[in-house]
């Protein structure tokens, strides 16, 4: 078949897909729709504009122009929030895909694509935000290809994030290929699903824990209540329920604002995803609570609990781990989806609080108050800018590609592998 025939076939394929989607009323062509200047869109536009100006200020004026970083606090909000929280909250990708493909829980299949997309955008934005902190973006590949510091934990984190971002990108591409009508290459990538999932879990285990291990080098700087030899374990275990909470939270937002994009399968499976993840998150959170107690005990840090730092520590642990774990448990028992969604908000906030406590609040805790770090409004604005880019990208991709619905041409075909068919557990 000549090249012209191939192109003709692909174009007619695309036309067929488009027609079938239009008929099924699942998509409206967003290109045709004009941007509506709703209050939310105006706020988004303002954030993007301010972020763009601050980006210019940061890259032409240097770190000092936009940040409050200094020699005592070389890592600020961009590492604490954009990187540490971004990576933890993007854990939904490996958690959902391993639940579905490795553990064979096919009833969570409809949650895989949104979770992979969230994870992919999360990691892409982590790398994007990292450029603000380290500067000179053109040298970003240096640690991987030119001058690898193989004895450094940061090298391991960098390598894992680099590889995992590629894995997530490949895991995400079937949706793009379905949208473009590239059936053959889509089927080829779908055939790699199991391999990519296993690789993704291995990489996530490595770098989620290594992010915690980064702080092992600073026992004198991090408050004893947060410092522990088990920090890598804490980071890895907490990333699991962070990922699950994020999948529930993101799912509830998608339900509210993108309900019209969801097909019957997604709508019918969503409650099961929420309740199943609630149960799992609840149990993992309780286990996390247990190992936090063991960490306290093995370092004999009980006496710190009766200080103001101890109150803050207990606030984090009881308010944002024990409480959401209990709410998740009640939600799973009572089959109460709304309650699970409330718990997911607490879970997401809890993981943000934990990462910020370790990287900012309880870090350099012995320094006098005037030497402590507080982010400048420009640092906060850039973090908001980065999150907004993620939301806009998610909105845009879900508008075009089959993320929240199955493409009509691939219905009843399982992502894990068409050859094996759709297995119900």
């Amino acid at each position: 078949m000549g090249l012209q025939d191939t192109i003709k076939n692909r174009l007619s394929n695309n036309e067929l897909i488009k027609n079938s989607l239009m008929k099924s009323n699942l998509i409206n062509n967003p290109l045709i729709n004009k941007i509506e200047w709703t209050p939310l869109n105006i706020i988004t536009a303002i954030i993007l504009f301010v972020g763009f100006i601050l980006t210019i200020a940061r890259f032409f004026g240097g770190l000092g122009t936009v940040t409050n970083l200094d020699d005592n606090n070389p890592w600020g909000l961009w590492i604490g929030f954009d990187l540490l929280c971004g990576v933890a909250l993007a854990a939904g990708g490996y958690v959902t895909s391993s639940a579905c493909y490795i553990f064979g829980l096919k009833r969570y299949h409809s949650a895989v694509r949104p979770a992979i997309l969230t994870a992919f955008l999360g990691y892409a934005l982590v790398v994007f935000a990292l450029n603000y902190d380290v500067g000179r973006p053109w040298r970003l590949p240096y640690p991987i290809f030119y001058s690898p510091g193989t004895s450094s934990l940061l090298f391991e984190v960098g390598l894992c994030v680099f590889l995992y971002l590629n894995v997530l990108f490949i895991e995400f591409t079937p949706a793009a290929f379905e949208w473009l009508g590239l059936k053959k290459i889509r089927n080829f990538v779908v055939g790699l699903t199991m391999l990519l999932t296993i690789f993704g879990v291995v990489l996530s285990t490595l770098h989620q824990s290594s992010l915690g291990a980064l702080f092992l080098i600073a026992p004198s700087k991090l408050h004893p209540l947060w410092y522990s030899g088990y920090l890598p374990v804490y980071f890895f275990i907490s990333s699991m329920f962070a990922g699950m909470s994020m999948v529930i939270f993101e799912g509830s937002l998608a339900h509210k604002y993108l309900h019209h994009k969801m097909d019957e399968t997604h709508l019918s499976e969503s409650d099961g995803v929420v309740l199943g993840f609630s149960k799992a998150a609840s149990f993992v959170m309780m286990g996390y609570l247990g190992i936090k107690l063991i960490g306290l005990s093995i370092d004999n840090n009980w006496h710190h609990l009766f200080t103001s730092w101890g109150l803050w520590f207990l606030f984090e642990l009881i308010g944002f781990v024990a409480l959401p774990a209990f709410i998740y448990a009640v939600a799973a028992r009572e089959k109460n989806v709304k309650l699970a969604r409330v718990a997911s908000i607490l879970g997401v906030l809890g993981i943000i609080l934990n990462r910020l406590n370790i990287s900012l609040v309880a870090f350099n805790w012995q320094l006098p108050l005037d030497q402590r770090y507080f982010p400048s409004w420009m640092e906060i604005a850039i973090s908001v800018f980065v999150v907004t880019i993620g939301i806009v990208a998610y909105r845009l991709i879900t508008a075009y590609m089959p993320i929240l619905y199955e493409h009509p041409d691939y219905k009843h075909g399982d992502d894990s592998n068409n050859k094996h068919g759709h297995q119900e557990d």
Partner: protein
Amino acid sequence: MEHIFYTLQDFMVHTKGITYLIMGGLLVALPLFWLFLTGRDEKNKTF
């Protein structure tokens, strides 16, 4: 009040002793929590 330890042996015996008690507690508490979590699930016959 913070207890003063004069030897590493004292410290290890104290902290490990409490840690083992906590771990024993967790071994009892986590299965009970699991029973609470799955208490209203439909029972699947496995035989």
